[in-house]
């Protein structure tokens, strides 16, 4: 029996297949089929697994919702808000993201103003009814949805986080009058205060709902047709998984389903290696994604912004900068710049021979020998060294550098940019990166990992098994996870703990009910409480764990300490505001045992040698085949480790070895710079 994960990317769908008994892992890649991603998955399953009935657990990261949003191909949504204030959605808080732009336009909302409607009702901040709901004011809305065949309705009423009664009443009426129309309610999507952010989240849910529902139904049907009748699991933005049933009910939670796999993979690596703090970096062609594992835990946020649109949802913190193998070099007033523009896949880097003439970071890697001419796709793609060299000479002349200096310089600038992003998520938050191990994956990550680590004075680097499909592997390591929240505003010196207990009990009920629906046994359930705190009058909150005993004072002490650690000062003894209560419900999933199988010792790991330039000096470096490297034997850099999905470059000054679970561990030598 197998556990299978599929990560649907823009070009390829990556597969990781785990044999449940032996723990053996296989990887595979099939082209993504954007018109119907379910077909790509099925192609992969058919190619890689003899009998789909042998699949016991299937999880995948879907970009269906995200793509519908990015390409603006979601459903037409009608938004209903409280009478008098429905323009708040369109005004979107009135701020400017770019301050030196006379020609500024706000990010375009998903719902045009003509489709935003009002219902007569009003609640106060405590949830008390100020104006009763006037059901008749829904009539024109019902007529319009019918007449114009609008497939989705989002409802966001003022103060619904405090009292959802009016939203529920509206839902009752609309679902009765408008069968088949998808309805999203703000108190269910994001039960937190701030009407603009909540409305925006609810609209997003409604916008992707029909697309995600259709996709999941199609996938399920096609799976059934080939005899696989197991539940389909979907990765969610918070790093947990959920069943397709739940995903259809809360489509917004699938939005960042893809990239979180890598972060969860990081958490699992932390468990299996005992390394508590990991800085995970995923470098592909156009972007560089960073996330942290601190003390074995992923970092979560409860809010994010996508293309300028705010979303209240639980999400793994992933920072992205525009730097990758495709980043282009250019000259401005005698200064050399790298990125953020990317050559993309067309024309792509010069060395791909598809018409690119401007050098990219990938070209620099080839020119310096870091990337072999036959390294990509196991030699199925040969790279064009001649054109690459010409491109470097030409640009080098323009700026007074030799071709080698330019190539090394481009990598240095690209690395420095990525390192600045790494500093921002560590040093910028009061975290010392030297306490971390760098975990690098993605197609280009292992190529730059060691030099990035050196920029931050990180001594240890880990390249996991199958770095090119690490995100898919991470998905297999996840648990079922649901996050619940309730806004409860109070000041620390005037708290009614019984009210807080009631709210937590309510969330606990919801949590165990949801987990039960997802087939989780009670013994496998776990619940974590936390509370968002801040000093009186502040805006940003810090999320602090809260024990089952609801020891708020303990949590407040922890808050002062966290604040001190993050900002270098704290106001011990000052009153603290409680904003939101949160409950995380986790259903533990069984894993395959970790493979520790000994490898055949017969194969010679040394494949060849190649001339590689580091710091202007050429080294005749050994090229190793990763799958043939024996466990626990120490090797010396400079060296290159090649495998199907990636190439790891190790500059002088490091030792490296394969640990007992197959990770490539690279260590700076004591006296290395």
């Amino acid at each position: 029996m197998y556990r299978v994960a599929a990560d649907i990317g823009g070009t390829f769908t990556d597969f990781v297949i785990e044999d449940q008994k032996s723990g053996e892992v296989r990887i595979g890649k099939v082209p993504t089929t954007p018109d119907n991603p379910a077909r790509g998955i099925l192609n992969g399953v058919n190619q890689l697994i003899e009998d789909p009935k042998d699949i016991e657990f299937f999880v995948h990261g879907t970009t269906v919702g995200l793509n519908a949003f990015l390409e603006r191909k979601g459903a037409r949504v009608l938004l209903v808000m409280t009478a008098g204030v429905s323009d708040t959605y369109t005004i979107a808080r009135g701020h400017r993201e770019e301050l030196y732009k006379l020609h500024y336009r706000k990010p375009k909302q998903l719902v045009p103003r003509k489709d935003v409607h009002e219902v007569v009702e009003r609640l106060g901040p405590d949830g008390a009814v100020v104006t009763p709901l006037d059901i008749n004011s829904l009539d024109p809305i019902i007529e319009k949805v019918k007449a114009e065949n609008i497939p989705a309705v989002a409802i966001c009423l003022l103060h619904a986080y405090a009292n959802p009664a009016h939203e529920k009443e509206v839902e009752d009426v609309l679902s009765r009058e408008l069968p088949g129309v998808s309805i999203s309610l703000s108190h269910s999507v994001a039960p937190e205060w701030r009407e603009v952010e909540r409305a925006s989240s609810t609209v997003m849910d409604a916008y992707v709902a029909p697309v995600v529902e259709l996709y999941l139904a199609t996938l399920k049907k096609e799976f059934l047709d080939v005899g696989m009748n197991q539940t389909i699991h979907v990765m969610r933005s918070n790093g947990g998984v959920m069943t397709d049933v739940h995903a259809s009910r809360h489509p917004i939670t699938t939005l960042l389903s893809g990239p979180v796999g890598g972060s969860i993979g990081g958490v699992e690596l932390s468990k299996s290696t005992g390394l508590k703090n990991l800085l995970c970096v995923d470098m592909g062609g156009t972007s560089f994604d960073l996330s942290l594992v601190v003390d074995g835990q992923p970092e979560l946020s409860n809010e994010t912004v996508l293309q300028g649109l705010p979303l209240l949802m639980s999400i793994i913190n992933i920072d992205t900068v525009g730097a990758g193998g495709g980043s282009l070099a250019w000259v401005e007033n005698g200064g050399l710049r790298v990125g953020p523009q990317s050559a993309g896949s067309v024309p792509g880097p010069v060395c791909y021979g598809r018409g690119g003439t401007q050098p990219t970071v990938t070209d620099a890697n080839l020119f310096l020998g870091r990337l072999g001419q036959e390294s990509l796709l196991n030699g199925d793609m040969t790279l064009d060294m001649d054109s690459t060299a010409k491109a470097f000479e030409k640009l080098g002349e323009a700026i007074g550098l030799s071709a080698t200096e330019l190539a090394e310089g481009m990598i240095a600038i690209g690395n420095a940019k990525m390192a600045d992003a790494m500093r921002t998520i560590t040093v910028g938050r009061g975290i010392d990166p030297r306490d971390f191990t760098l975990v690098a994956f993605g197609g280009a990550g292992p190529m730059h990992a060691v030099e990035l680590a050196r920029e931050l004075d990180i001594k240890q680097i880990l390249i996991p098994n199958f770095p090119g499909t690490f995100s898919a592997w991470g998905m297999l390591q996840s648990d079922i996870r649901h996050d619940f929240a309730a806004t409860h505003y109070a000041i620390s010196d005037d708290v009614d703990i019984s009210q807080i207990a009631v709210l937590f009990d309510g969330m606990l009920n919801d949590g165990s009910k949801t987990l039960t629906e997802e087939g989780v046994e009670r013994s496998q359930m776990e619940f974590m409480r936390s509370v968002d705190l801040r000093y009186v009058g502040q805006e940003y909150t810090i999320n602090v764990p809260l024990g089952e005993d609801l020891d708020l004072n303990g949590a407040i002490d922890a808050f002062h300490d966290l604040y001190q650690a993050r900002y270098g000062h704290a106001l011990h003894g000052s009153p603290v505001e409680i904003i939101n209560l949160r409950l995380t419900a986790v259903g533990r999933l069984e894993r395959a045992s970790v493979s520790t199988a000994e490898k055949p010792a017969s194969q010679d790991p040394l494949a060849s040698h190649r001339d590689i330039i580091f710091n202007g000096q050429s080294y005749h470096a050994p090229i190793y085949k990763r799958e043939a490297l024996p466990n626990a034997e120490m090797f010396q850099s400079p060296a290159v480790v090649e495998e199907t999905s990636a190439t790891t470059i190790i500059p002088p000054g490091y030792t490296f070895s394969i640990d007992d679970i197959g990770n490539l561990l690279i260590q700076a030598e004591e006296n290395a710079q």
Partner: protein
Amino acid sequence: MSNPVNPITTEIIRNAFNSIAEDMNAALIRSAYTPIIYEGKDCAVALLDDRGEVLGQSLGLPLFLGNLSLCVQIVAEMHGWDYFGEGDVIFLNDSYIAGTHLNDVTVIVPIFWKGKRIGFATSRAHWLDVGAKDAGQPTDAHEIYQEGMRWAPTKAYRAGEPCEDILTFLKRNSRFGDALLGDLHAQIAAGSTGKDRFCALLDRFGLATVWAARDDIFRQSAEMERQTIAAIPDGTYRADGALDSDGLTDDPVPVKLTVTVEGDHMTVDLSGSAAQTRGAVNCGATQTVSAARVAFKLLINPKRPVDGGTFTALEVIAPEGSIFNAQEPAACSWYFSSLGLLIDLFVKAMSEVMPTDAAGAHYGDSMVLILTGYDDAKNGELFVAVEANTGGWGGWDGSDGQDCLINNVNGSFRDYPIEVYENRYPIRIQKYGIRADSGGAGKFRGGNGSYREYLLTNDASMSLWFERSHTTAWGLFGGQAGKPPEVVVTHPDGNEFRALKSNATPLKAGTVIEVKTGGGGGYGDPAERAADLVQADIENHYVSTAAAQTAYSS
């Protein structure tokens, strides 16, 4: 050697300067206590070199652009560079040094590396209350002494030790002493972040390399700027307008602006503008320079980060004793109204030779409503609700102006969510929306202003600062002007009054305040507006059918 660093090192160091400034800004915003900082982004940070020139600056409040640099240089002129000791933290808010109102406090953290002073991590942020005569910010001050405490450069820390006497003094002279100290420490945290990261950069590259890279970066910026100016035809370009009043009388306050372009050099001359007024629309010369820089930056290389090479081609003339170079004891609380107008006028003056870069004028000012009182439901606790209002921006060649956007001298200010506002203050926001028909008609129309209706559920006193009803947002190249702002107050007994400025007017629970902000100016002849755009405006209720018929039926 003239250029001992290669372009690669220079680029790495240039990115690092900007990244350091971003991190300083993040530290400040995330640890600040007052919403005006973390929501209004009424703050700015800059990393400066040993002579106070900008190495890196994050995009904070535009009006503080380049101003921190001048502050450090003025303090050095006063006390010498050795005044800045290791472990010191210096703060100041003197309007005649910093240029802005007393609520804006500049904090300077000198940076030492290997025992040598090599730079400054500086920030400025708006503090909620610095002890003015009225809570928040008075609108009727006529001397700076009424506007709060005025601090010449003062040390809050000496050699790493807090000056407890000074800190206690600060705390006791503010209505929100805890928040004041919290914001001071947020600024110190930003300073520490800048200091740590700058020292780490020096550890890696050494001083000589970093300075050589700096020189190269400044050269690049200065060169880019001169090229852009050289492309503008030589000549003299003028525009003028007026503020409604100084808040004390009804007399307009004229602003006159002359831009001279000569080769690769530009001069902004404010001669002919009003003499300093009794009311608080004055500012120090430093702030006028900043505003001129913001205006300049809107049209000249807006995407290039600011550094010590930026603005070397710009000269600003602000006559002494005018509203733009005010002297003691001129009041400065509402200094930004004059500067917002200055910026709009600069764009207007240059529109003649930069028609595609320009835009119609925007609604013009922060349009501030302040409500303060003692909340009966919270045991008489003091509340101060201060909020700016969004309005319409001007259309430009290719697009309509934005509806309901915060004004040009504000940062990325966000309005308060109604749900947060109502939890915090005994006030209900009954209506908040887009004010149809308020943007000026044009081939590309001006953006619409906003309207809000507040119901007081507790007694409160109201201060208003609404401007630009005299010089409303003008259009360009045939575009029409936007509508002016309006405020209507209806007492519980049904009587109403209109005002645009007022100070601490007492109002009873049950009073309704309706505020409307102006729209932006249109661009181009309305007769040329595409029919489908006119239709879409009607469908989306941005323009009423009647108004569309008047403006667009040719």
